[in-house]
């Protein structure tokens, strides 16, 4: 049903050449989705919770703000929620370890496929500088939106979606709507 050889074959294809994106060396998305679903299910069964990612950024932000100016986190419910009660290191939480795993897991997969390379992803009609600016702006939108929605596509989307949470489904539809709405405006960046 799936060829294991493909997983370990070395591809030195640079997928960010100007021109076509070559999806042929990536695994079938349905298979990935199925396996991802199993991993998610395992998380539910073992931990009684789902996965997440944006919480880590929040924790890092809260810790950074606290280090830089402790006064501004006092009384701010948002930051205090991520810093905990001072008993344990706020960075020592489940999501942090999970995201560290995600980072390393991605690295391993990329290494096996020979895809690890310092590169700036963009379409053929865009400059690097512009791309990085857009990346930063997009990131800020993401950060703000993720906090407002209390999650991101991994947490609210995958986890909330599989639990059939009303908020999770509403969130997912909004994400797709927002992205499609703006796709035309930034088409020069990607195509």
């Amino acid at each position, binding site marked *: 049903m799936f060829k294991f050889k493909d997983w370990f074959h070395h591809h030195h294809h640079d997928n960010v050449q100007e021109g076509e994106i070559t999806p042929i060396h990536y695994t079938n998305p349905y298979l990935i989705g199925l396996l991802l679903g199993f991993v998610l299910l395992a998380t539910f069964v073992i931990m009684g919770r789902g996965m997440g990612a944006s919480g880590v950024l929040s924790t890092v932000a809260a810790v950074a703000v606290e280090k830089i100016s402790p006064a501004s986190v006092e009384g701010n419910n948002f930051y205090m929620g991520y810093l905990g009660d001072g008993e344990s290191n706020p960075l020592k939480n489940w999501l942090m370890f999970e995201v560290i795993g995600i980072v390393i897991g991605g690295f391993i997969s990329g290494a096996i496929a020979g895809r690890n390379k310092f590169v700036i992803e963009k379409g053929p009609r865009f400059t690097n500088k512009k791309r990085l600016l857009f*990346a930063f702006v997009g*990131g800020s939108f993401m950060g703000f939106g993720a906090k407002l929605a209390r999650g991101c596509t991994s947490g609210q989307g995958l986890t909330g979606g599989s639990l059939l949470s009303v*908020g999770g489904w509403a969130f997912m539809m909004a994400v797709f709507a927002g992205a499609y709405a703006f796709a035309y405006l930034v088409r020069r960046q990607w195509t």
Partner: protein
Amino acid sequence: MIAPFYKFGYFNDEVSLIVAFVLGLAFGFLFERGGFGSGRMLAAQFYFTDMRVFKVMFTAITTAMIGLFYLSWMGFLDLSLVYFGETYLLPQVVGGLILGIGFVIGGYCPGTSSVAISTGKIDAMVYALGGLFGIFGFGEIFPWIEDFFNSTHMGKINLPEFLGIDYGIVLFVVILMAIAGFTGADWGEKLMAKKKAAQVKES
């Protein structure tokens, strides 16, 4: 009912962190395998050329959803012990829209950016910095938007409750929608590929 194992005390907090790491490894590995470490690949979703974001997400959601249903039905998993987030409808919709905009402008979402960073994408690193900035901005204006943030609180409500339809029926409908969606996505991709081929021929 022996699952969720952690909630029934089969292992302690320290071990749960290791579990987190291992699950994260699998997650990240699969993400990169599926091409989610590439901003171009992810953005292609919104230009209809490669619909893998939709395919992966929906397959994963449907698989996990079916698994949750049946494991609970068999008396193996206690669903009432699984963490279920509270729904705050308006902030989640608005936040979703904003995140979606950020997704197509930046090319990533939090989970995929982690994978992209570890495979060397510099724009993903900048994206993550932008994310911190966005969160910082949120934190700073939080006192002013705190009321909105807590508005339209619907509690822990799921689709069957909300629609007043049986869980099993909702499950079935979601499966049908997923299959319909995938069929549409495949067809759409083929269409775009044909269009592109025709364009290339002309030039």
